[in-house]
């Protein structure tokens, strides 16, 4: 077939213009601007002088930066693997159900994912309220001393990780369910003919076949949780924000509360590099392990 090449170029250009304009303006340009800004001492709005790598060398001596890095890593550790494990367990349970029952139970698990973060915050702030929270009644019944959860450094991150898992788990459950449905039923029939027990079937059939989905879930979670801000910020209000700093929170604090645009940009660049490096590594790893398994 003869292609009208020139016309095709023109049509492509017109179709791509909205996308290119938007990405150029709010993606490519801000990314370059972020790197440039990180070498200056500019305030949030306005010009600054070139200061070389000073903003970066400062971070090495910055205790708050350490806190932010440590808390982010801690939060990732508390949320990624546990979140994926919980989602897998729930998906296995839900996949046993059928029809309307399955739809209903899945909806109960999935509904939190749909909620805005501030609604999630209100619900849990109320549930864990020191004076009236229903969680505290449960604590009382169990004979555990009440804790002002979000006002203590010990409980803050674990509680936020727990709530985050509750909030976002529905997404991962869906992925696992899709993966479980893709496993052919005949394999299970063969396994049961071989007299394989429930645990053996899971270990020898389900788990290996589900590994690509598990890897995908872990990847998505990892990249997502490194960028945490909303929950930490909301639960910190009225508490001890400096103890609860995570990377994005620290960018926000430096830029919008201390008016240090350049220094904030340096933190942003560090987070940017970490996320990109982890994504690339993760992609390579899952590709290798994926090709090994399949």
């Amino acid at each position, binding site marked *: 077939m003869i*292609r009208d090449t020139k016309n095709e*170029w023109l049509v*492509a250009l017109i*179709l*791509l213009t909205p*996308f290119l304009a*938007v*990405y150029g*303006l*709010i*993606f490519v340009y*801000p*990314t370059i*601007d*972020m790197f440039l800004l990180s070498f200056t001492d500019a305030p949030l*709005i306005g010009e600054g002088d070139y200061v070389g790598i000073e903003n970066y060398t400062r971070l090495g001596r910055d205790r708050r930066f350490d806190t932010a890095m440590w808390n982010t890593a801690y939060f990732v550790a508390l949320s990624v693997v546990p979140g994926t494990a919980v989602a897998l367990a*729930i998906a*296995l*349970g839900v996949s046993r*159900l059928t029809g309307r029952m399955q739809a209903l139970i899945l909806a*109960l*698990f999935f*509904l*939190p994912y*749909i*909620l*805005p*973060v*501030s*609604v999630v*915050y*209100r619900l849990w702030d*109320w549930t864990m309220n020191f004076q*009236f929270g229903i969680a505290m*009644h449960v604590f009382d019944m169990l004979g555990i001393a009440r804790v002002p959860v979000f006002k203590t450094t010990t409980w803050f991150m674990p509680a936020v990780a727990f709530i985050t898992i*509750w909030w976002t788990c529905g*997404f991962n459950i869906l*992925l696992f369910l*899709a*993966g479980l449905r893709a496993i052919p039923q005949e394999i299970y029939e063969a396994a*049961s003919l071989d*007299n394989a*027990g429930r645990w053996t079937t899971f270990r020898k059939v389900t788990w290996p076949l589900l590994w690509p989905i598990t890897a*995908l879930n872990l990847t*998505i979670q990892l990249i997502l949780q*490194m*960028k945490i801000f*909303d929950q930490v910020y909301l639960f910190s*209000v*009225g508490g001890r924000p400096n103890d609860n700093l995570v990377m*994005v929170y620290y*960018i*926000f604090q430096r*830029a919008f509360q201390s008016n240090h*645009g350049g220094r*904030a940009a340096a933190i*942003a660049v560090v*987070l940017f590099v970490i*996320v990109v490096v982890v994504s*690339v590594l993760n992609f390579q790893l899952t590709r290798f392990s994926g090709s090994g398994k399949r």
Partner: protein
Amino acid sequence: MNPVTARRFNVAGLAITLLTVVLAVLWAFPMYWGVVSSLKPDNEVVRPYIELWPDTLTFEHYVFALTQTQIGYWYMNSIATALGVMVLTVGSSIFAGYAISQLRFPFRTALWWFILASFMVPTQVLIINHFVLMANMGLLNTWAGIILPQLIHPVIIIVYKQFFDQVPKDFREAAIMDNASEWRILFKVYIPMNWGVTTALSIVTFIWAWNAFLWPFLAVTKTELMTITVGITQTNDSFGVYYASELAAAVLAGFPVALAYLLFQRRVTEAITLSAGIKG
């Protein structure tokens, strides 16, 4: 399988099912508790025991939230900006996805790699530069300022490209034989064939935009221009009795997306699996 082990397995299976159902109920409980508490009068809200249903049902907190806060404005801002993000994202992604999937032009492969790569850039790190840019353009405290930085959704383009790739080539060739223009092919063949995908992606884009927090929180300082997700966090009262009103406001903020989900449950879950790049 001999009958003894079969029975043992069924008992275990039943236990797993039961556990799943119990866990699901517990999972949904905080949401139930939030709604129920918002329907209790103040003196009942703070009772030191668990009361699953109010003695007296009251809507006073909803009346309070609707009349004493600027929630009406927040609703309007949320609807306008979420619709804006939805239409612009889905629209530009359909166009870009079609061009990359069906048309041949220079740098096509490079552009595709760029879109795939942009997937891993954390947009949260761009808040400073977005803020400066929007300030320079005079767009802070405007709907456009809330919408613009939220338009980076490479995943939608990726999904469209994959779907357009799957449309059989015959359709396109037949249309070209009939002298149909590219526009006709796109609007009369490719888009109608993928209505299901478009509906699904539009709903999730709307939900994402409605739920966005960080950027709308930075872009707006005037209370009446806030989106509802940001607005309801601004009424911070530490008196216990105000909790019910704040819960009522939270229920109002979560209601549209919860409703969208319940109405389009299958579409929403379909879009989620699509956006993760799985064909299940």
